[in-house]
């Protein structure tokens, strides 16, 4: 068989069951897209072909892998792993961990004698050279990681869910960057649920429960809009549950001023806006995590920062800081009763995992565990920060059903406009420090 990547009878297990089972395969395509639901084995596949399993992550591997001219039996050996790492670059899902230094300049100086100006110019990031990595947006961090890969002159670049944290314009930008990389004759493997952004892919591998369910040219229609078709119910929007008057928040580098709005009982409120417009800051202020000036009234009572904490629940972008227990069921039951917990867990398709450690699930599933915990808890207002980031299409549908059935006031911060159109009865746009309301039907990509 020919091709730069060859797999023979690859099997991986992390315990009793096989997580990934592949027959003989050979690939010669430059741009490979790996799709499939959360937990279907996409990340496991990427980790196996690069040798992360079994060298860094634990796992039993059988079968042989050949990547470029590096051949190994029963998973890549340590030597082969190092050889592969010299010719490839893995852009992690949490791209922060790809970067080690404090500033962008240090990042390049760590690996090279000089800053590779040409590569920076190609990716259009010369202007952020002196900024701190902590303060960069996700897209910028991704570009810095990509610049590192390009200046190492690798043959293969692997992306693990690159679109999960990007807003709509950044997604388009990312596509342009990918084209640039492909022009050099490099190979790319992308694992992603949102197939519609990768029409240029040469080959799609769809995984389902650890097996290949589709292999061929990419099916780019993910049919999110059709699957989400539910008309939002008419809400009784007379009783305000939360009123915000002239809210002002200052977090050092960033400021929000004169924000006023109200949330009615049973509202499903979409909050949208470009990256860096302050959506997360506003949400954190509402849930009592930031100091604020102004007045927040909850059910007619004026609340201060300390009282807000715990009254209004907030789902962080990073699910890991809200997971504490050693099994999914215990996790959800920290804040709710068993029958209520089970109801939301089965609604979100997590019933089969209830005795599993939530930290071992995939990122999308971890987000759903936190969501189940919040929806089944006693709080009446829930703020969800990017609940659909890194979720596959079916999960987004499950999430929307669960939110609709909860009967609580929910604020959703998202980049997924299809979701907003389908389930929100009101939409707020935060742009350039101003907050204004639009009707859900008029939401379009022009807002960003």
């Amino acid at each position, binding site marked *: 068989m020919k091709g730069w990547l060859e797999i023979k009878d690859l099997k991986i297990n992390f315990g009793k069951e096989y997580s990934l089972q592949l027959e003989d395969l050979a690939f010669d395509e430059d741009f490979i897209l790996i799709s499939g639901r959360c937990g279907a084995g996409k990340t496991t596949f990427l980790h196996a072909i690069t040798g992360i399993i079994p060298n860094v992550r634990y796992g039993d591997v059988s079968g042989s892998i050949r990547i470029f001219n590096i051949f190994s039996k029963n998973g890549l050996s340590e030597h082969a*792993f190092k050889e592969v790492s010299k010719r490839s670059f893995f852009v992690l899902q949490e791209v922060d961990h790809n970067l*080690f230094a404090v500033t962008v300049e240090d990042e390049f100086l760590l690996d090279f004698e000089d800053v590779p100006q040409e590569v920076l110019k190609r990716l259009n990031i010369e202007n952020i050279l002196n900024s701190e990595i902590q303060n960069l947006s996700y897209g910028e961090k991704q570009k810095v990681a990509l610049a*590192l890969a390009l200046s190492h002159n690798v043959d293969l670049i692997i992306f693990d869910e690159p679109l999960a944290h990007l807003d709509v314009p950044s997604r388009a930008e990312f596509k342009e960057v990918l084209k640039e990389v492909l022009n050099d004759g490099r190979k790319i493997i992308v694992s992603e649920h949102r197939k519609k952004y990768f029409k240029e892919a040469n080959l799609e591998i769809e995984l389902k429960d650890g097996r290949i369910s589709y292999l061929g040219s990419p099916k780019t229609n993910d049919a999110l809009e059709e699957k989400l078709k539910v008309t939002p119910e008419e809400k009784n929007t007379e009783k305000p549950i939360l009123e915000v008057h002239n809210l002002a928040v200052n977090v050092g580098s960033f400021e929000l001023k004169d924000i006023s709005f109200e949330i009615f009982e049973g509202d499903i409120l979409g909050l949208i806006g470009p990256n860096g417009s302050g959506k997360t800051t506003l949400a954190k202020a509402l849930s009592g*995590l930031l100091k604020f000036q102004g007045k927040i009234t909850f059910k007619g009572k004026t609340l201060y920062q300390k009282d807000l*904490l*715990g009254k209004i629940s907030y789902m962080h972008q990073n699910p890991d800081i809200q997971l*504490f*227990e050693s099994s999914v069921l215990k996790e959800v039951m920290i804040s709710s009763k068993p029958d209520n917990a089970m109801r939301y867990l089965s609604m979100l398709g997590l019933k089969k995992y209830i005795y599993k450690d939530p930290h071992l699930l995939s990122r999308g599933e971890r987000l759903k565990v936190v969501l189940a915990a919040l929806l089944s808890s006693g709080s009446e207002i829930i703020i969800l920060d990017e609940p659909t980031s890194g979720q596959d299409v079916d999960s987004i549908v499950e999430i929307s059903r669960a939110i609709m059935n909860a009967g609580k006031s929910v604020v959703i911060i998202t980049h997924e406009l299809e979701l907003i159109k389908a389930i929100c009865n009101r939409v707020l746009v935060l742009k350039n420090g101003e907050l204004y309301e639009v009707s859900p039907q008029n939401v379009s990509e022009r807002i960003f």
Partner: protein
Amino acid sequence: MSLREYFDMKYWRLSFKILLVVIYSILSIFTYKEFLIVAPFGILISLLNIMSFRVLIRVLVYVFIFTLISQGFFYYGFYLGQNVHIIFWVIRPEVPILGVITGGVALTVEGLYHGFIVGTKIITLTLIGLAFMSKTKVSEFLPILKKISHKLAFSIVLVFRYFPIIMSDFQNAYEGLKTRGIERIGIIKGLKLIFKAVIINMAKRAESITIAATFRRIY
């Protein structure tokens, strides 16, 4: 690397800083002049990026108070039979059982003074380190470090990046728990959950960094 190269004009700033840190650390370890230890507090704090170290500074205040109390009540000079000024007795040596076991417990002036000196020394030494970290760019000494060893450079760079992040982990876990819609939770249960989360997150982060480091050719 020759010594001359080390004191090259390019690195004079860094060399000066390191010299200052070393001299002042040694001085504050050995001196018992309270003025010398306390005086640079203002300067050191003004050098710090307080926001990123606020949790650590709170911990330092607790450490100081604990040192003061423990030294005040359990001053070694008291047990060695030195002449100490007793403010009040907690347990007199004549008390049956407890007095015999402990040999008496009392708050002493000398103990408080000793605790004050030790506590301020701890704070000063930590502040010197933090001030050095806040005021030094990694790029200043990256070239030197890389000449010694790439691995060393990597690990020191990593400390600068992740120290503030790990400091904020506890705060994040607390906020994460509070915003789960839980209004009241027992202290012991809450602490247990927070510690679990922090430890698991650290382990996961270590795994990710190992993967990333391999692809940056740091073995």
